[in-house]
């Protein structure tokens, strides 16, 4: 592990310097804080959240300010017909982005997990604003391309922001479904009784209830001690039993379905995997991503952003698929995951099925196992960040530190004070509790730091997608009009051109290493150059097929050719990009 990190550090920082933004003195009205542009072309406040329209405005500004770096396109439409906006970020001037190793970023697949869009946009913004000013970023955008979809579920994002919700609702898009099986769709959802746009709790005074007000903070409900009655009963989330079936809020206006159970690997139906829809890619949003990913086989790494809990997750989602994460690939994941734990304090690097729960039909499984793409899920924000302490357990919503933090750092902005309400079914009750933008979404002043740290992790992950370089091209005269040409191709990054499962099932075509400029009579892969162990490729020897170029390694190929003339070697790798080297004569 240490060795890999050292290699990683070596390749990250030993680069020729590019012209740095002047930071020894003020630029106009600004003086640079390290690591952040002092006067970016696109000014964005990273302490608030943006609507779909607000985000689109940022995308357009980025495209206008950085026309050679940022391109905007819609890759499809949501259930409601909203555009799925994708940013392609790279140096668009040096070579076509399809010929560069690519990194996929997406956010907001789950409606309520909104800061995942902001982190995706921050990544695009940070790349664009630092290109030409920072050596690492400049090289990264010269070598790689980023495909960034900040909002996979725009219907859900808008619905979460503009309709009454809890911090956990909705996860889905806005398609209505029959959640309670009574044949009607969405007939008994939340009711925003106090009209504040938040769905909070309902409580009723009851001398035989189990709950009391916390003497230290009367807003907080605590359970009565054993053997004693409390003063309140809790009645659940704000709502009315609209359909008279004896249950509250059991069939919400938007159906319960989960975009992250709708992917093509080990898909299972709803009765096995809650949230699955009809079949893989049966939702328009996931289908659009599938179409784009299949059309871009250069994607070699990816991250999909979620909340909550402070985690970097890798697959598989189900224990039975652990065999498809081969040891050589796990080493790569571990190197990246452990780096992530270091640079994002409060985050843990975990495995979905083992450390969290079983997920069938999850996105990262499809990316890794059916596309051979090295993929992480982030789970943004956690209770850790309230006081930078590892909390005990989740304490969802009623834990004391959420109240303390709200009181001393947010000045009670995150809480809807308990107020009386006359409920048609429960009579005199009170409504109150934490707002939907608390618990899961970062408070404003904690947002920018996490966006930056997670972006940094993303950039190092992207950095370690394959980088292929032809490090040697040698010709030897064999006499009798024959020449021997030897080419050595290095992958100077951690991620191989083909993951283990890719090699097992031939997911992606092999790498093609071809010789141009001479008549090729024979071609071979060199297994051991010193002892001349070779493997001849009898068919089409000018284009040698190489199954894999592993991370931090080289492969060697050899041709026997006739004729003179300048030769060129071309490496054409789906995930490693296209590289050409012409022999200098």
């Amino acid at each position, binding site marked *: 592990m240490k060795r890999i990190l050292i290699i990683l550090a070596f390749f990250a920082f030993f680069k020729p310097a590019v012209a740095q933004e002047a930071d020894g003195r003020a630029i106009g009205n600004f003086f640079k804080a390290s690591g952040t542009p002092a006067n970016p072309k696109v000014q964005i406040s990273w302490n608030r959240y943006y609507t779909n329209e607000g985000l689109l405005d940022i995308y357009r500004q980025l495209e206008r300010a950085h026309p050679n770096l940022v391109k905007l396109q819609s890759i499809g439409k949501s259930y409601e017909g909203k555009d799925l906006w994708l940013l392609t970020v790279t140096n668009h001037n040096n070579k076509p982005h399809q010929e560069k190793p690519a990194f996929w970023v997406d956010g907001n697949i789950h409606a309520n997990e909104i800061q995942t869009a902001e982190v995706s946009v921050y990544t695009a913004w940070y790349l664009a604003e630092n290109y030409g000013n920072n050596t690492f970023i400049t090289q990264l955008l010269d070598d790689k391309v980023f495909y960034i979809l900040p909002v996979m579920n725009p219907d859900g994002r808008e619905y979460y922001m503009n309709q009454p919700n809890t911090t956990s609702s909705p996860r889905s898009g806005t398609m209505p479904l029959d959640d309670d*099986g*009574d044949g009607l769709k969405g007939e008994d959802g939340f009711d925003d009784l106090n009209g504040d746009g938040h769905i909070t709790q309902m409580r009723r005074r009851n001398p035989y209830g189990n709950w009391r007000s916390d003497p230290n903070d009367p807003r907080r409900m605590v359970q009565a001690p054993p053997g004693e009655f409390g003063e309140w009963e809790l009645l659940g989330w704000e709502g009315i039993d609209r359909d008279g*079936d004896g249950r509250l809020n059991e069939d919400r206006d938007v159906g319960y379905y989960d975009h992250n159970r709708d992917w093509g690997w080990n898909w299972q139906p*709803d*009765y*096995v995997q809650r949230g699955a829809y009809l*079949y*893989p890619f049966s939702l328009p949003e996931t289908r659009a991503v599938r179409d784009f990913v299949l059309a871009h086989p250069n994607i070699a790494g990816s991250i999909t952003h979620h909340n909550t809990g402070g985690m970097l997750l890798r697959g598989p989602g189900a224990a039975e698929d652990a065999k498809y994460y081969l040891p050589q690939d796990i080493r790569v994941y571990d190197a990246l995951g452990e780096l992530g734990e270091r640079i994002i304090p409060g985050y843990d690097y975990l495995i979905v099925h083992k450390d969290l729960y079983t997920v069938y039909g999850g996105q990262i499984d*499809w990316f890794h196992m059916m596309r051979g793409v090295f993929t992480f899920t982030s789970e943004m924000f956690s209770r850790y960040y309230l006081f930078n302490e590892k909390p005990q357990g989740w304490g969802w919503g009623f834990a004391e530190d959420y109240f303390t933090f709200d009181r001393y750092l947010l000045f009670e902005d995150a809480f809807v004070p308990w107020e009386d309400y006359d409920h048609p079914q429960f009579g005199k009750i009170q409504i109150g509790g934490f707002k939907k933008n608390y618990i899961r979404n970062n408070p404003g002043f904690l947002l920018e730091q996490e966006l930056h740290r997670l972006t940094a992790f993303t950039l190092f992950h992207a950095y370690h997608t394959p980088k292929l370089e032809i490090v040697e091209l040698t010709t030897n005269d064999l006499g009798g009009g024959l020449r021997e040409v030897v080419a050595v191709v290095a992958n100077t990054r951690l991620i191989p051109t083909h993951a283990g499962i890719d090699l097992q099932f031939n997911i992606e075509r092999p790498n093609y290493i071809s010789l141009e400029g001479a008549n090729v009579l024979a071609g071979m892969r060199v297994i051991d150059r010193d002892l001349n162990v070779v493997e001849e490729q009898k*068919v089409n020897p000018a284009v040698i097929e190489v199954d894999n170029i592993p991370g931090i390694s080289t492969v060697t190929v050899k041709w026997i050719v006739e004729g003179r003339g300048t030769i060129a070697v071309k490496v054409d790798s789906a995930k490693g990009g296209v590289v050409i080297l012409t022999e200098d004569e």
Partner: protein
Amino acid sequence: MKMLNPGVVLSMNQLKETNHLHFSQKQKSKTKQISRWYLFLFLAFAFLLLAAPFHLFANQNQVSSTDYPNHQQLGQQLQALSRSHSALARVQSLAKTEGGKDIWLLTIGTGDIDNKPALAIVGGVMGDHLLGTELAMQFAGKILASSAEENVRNLLDSVSFYIFPDMSPDAREQYFRTPRYERLGNANPTDLDRDGRIGEDGYDDLNSDGLITMMRVKDPTGEWIKHPDDERVMVKARREKGEIGEYLLFSEGIDNDKDGQFNEDGEEGVFFNRNFTFKYPVFQRGAGEHAVSEVETRAIADFLYDAKNVFAVISFGEANNLTKPLSYSEREANARLHTGWKKEDIAINQKISHLYNKHLEGAAPEAKAGSDGDFFQWAYFHYGRFSFSTQGWQVPKPESAEKDEYNSAELSFLRWAEENQLENVFVPWTPVDHPDFPGRLVEVGGVAPFVMKNPPYQMVDAIAEKHTAFILDVARLRPQIDIVNLKTEKLGRDLTRVTLDVLNRGTFPTASETGELVRWMQKTVMQVNLGPDQAIISGKPVEVMGAIGGRSSEQRSWLIQGRGNVTIRVGAEASGFKEVTVNL
């Protein structure tokens, strides 16, 4: 990719000939061989005349033909059926395939079709199974032809039929194209051998007969020999008996991409019957990019998930749980990812299997388990409906083939074909020059494509009669919700206790056990609609009920305060609805 080697391009005349080539029975009778067949037919017809509510010759919609219809003719037949029975039948195209062909749906029924129990009938599950399409089509033709008869008419008033005659139209069309070969894949360009090149090594019609058959190469490393009893048939040498192989055996073609394999990546794409979500055979040949990736599979899945009223699916394909019912495995039925049928569902399978054998009279093809990613298992495990599948027919094993030590299906077929005087079922082995085997003896020949999986067209009608009668009997066993034993007890001062039994009059339960788990299978809902100034004192105003078994009932009661009428409605699309009005 090229299908034809430039050296063996067919002339237009040859193309024309091969297009018209079909296997058929010789017309003139030869008493000895044929008498047994005619006796069989006669008995089958006689049975049907007695057992079925309609008869063979009442079918005026059948386009008279000597061969299976192609896609265009199929469309015409469907249009003709819906035109001549516009009150009962409606045809629609659910989607267009990559090959530009329609996915047809023929809906038969009356009134509120989508809110009555329905059967889905599916053909073309396998692109090389022409019979399946024909059985679905003839089912439609026969019930429409006899729809004037009272018992059929009554059935059509209470059951709907969704008929999907051909789910593999791109593949099936290969029967009518040159060269003819047994094809399963659609027209979606697919890298079948996953080598990064699409369709680079298909079949090649080396002997220019318009058919893709086999190719044998004389070779001392080969494993194959000629069958000692019939030199036309190739069998594997039994090395344990001292036999020595003499031939290599391949399908007819050239190793176009020189990878050492023959015809492993041709024109065909994804197989309908390998592209479903249950045990999806990821990365396997013909399975596609992921489950339900294709126009065909999406079209039927989307339609059926919306069709809440389907209680059972009958498909014609490779699986068969009708000749023998599936067997129960407690472990498989109760695993988290259950792969075995649930116990009560097996009991229904047993009943339906019994019915099938009664209709097929010993001609039922052999039982066969489902395959990974197939339609048959999807319909049960993921769609949650009762799912029945049969091949419809298999080559009968003649006595003369029973003693074959090699147990060769081809030998058996050839014997049977001779007894029935079938023509054009075998291509004699003829030497060809083969670029991959210069100077070697390479012969092309063998059993013609399609003939072992599909009976001669003239035999189909009798097979269709039996299957039609069988399907109608299945429809008669549909779940049927009813309300019986309605009782009101006055408790005084406008307080009434209402009691009733919800009865399922059918043999099928209102949902299969797996269907109970499936979110998209509508549960039985009971709803009490109160009038003004009425209140429920006890009992549920709305109840989502569990499945009610065949010929089983559940009792419910309410205490209702008030006067006047209360209506109680119970049911679901797949078992029908019943509403009663109660006077308090």
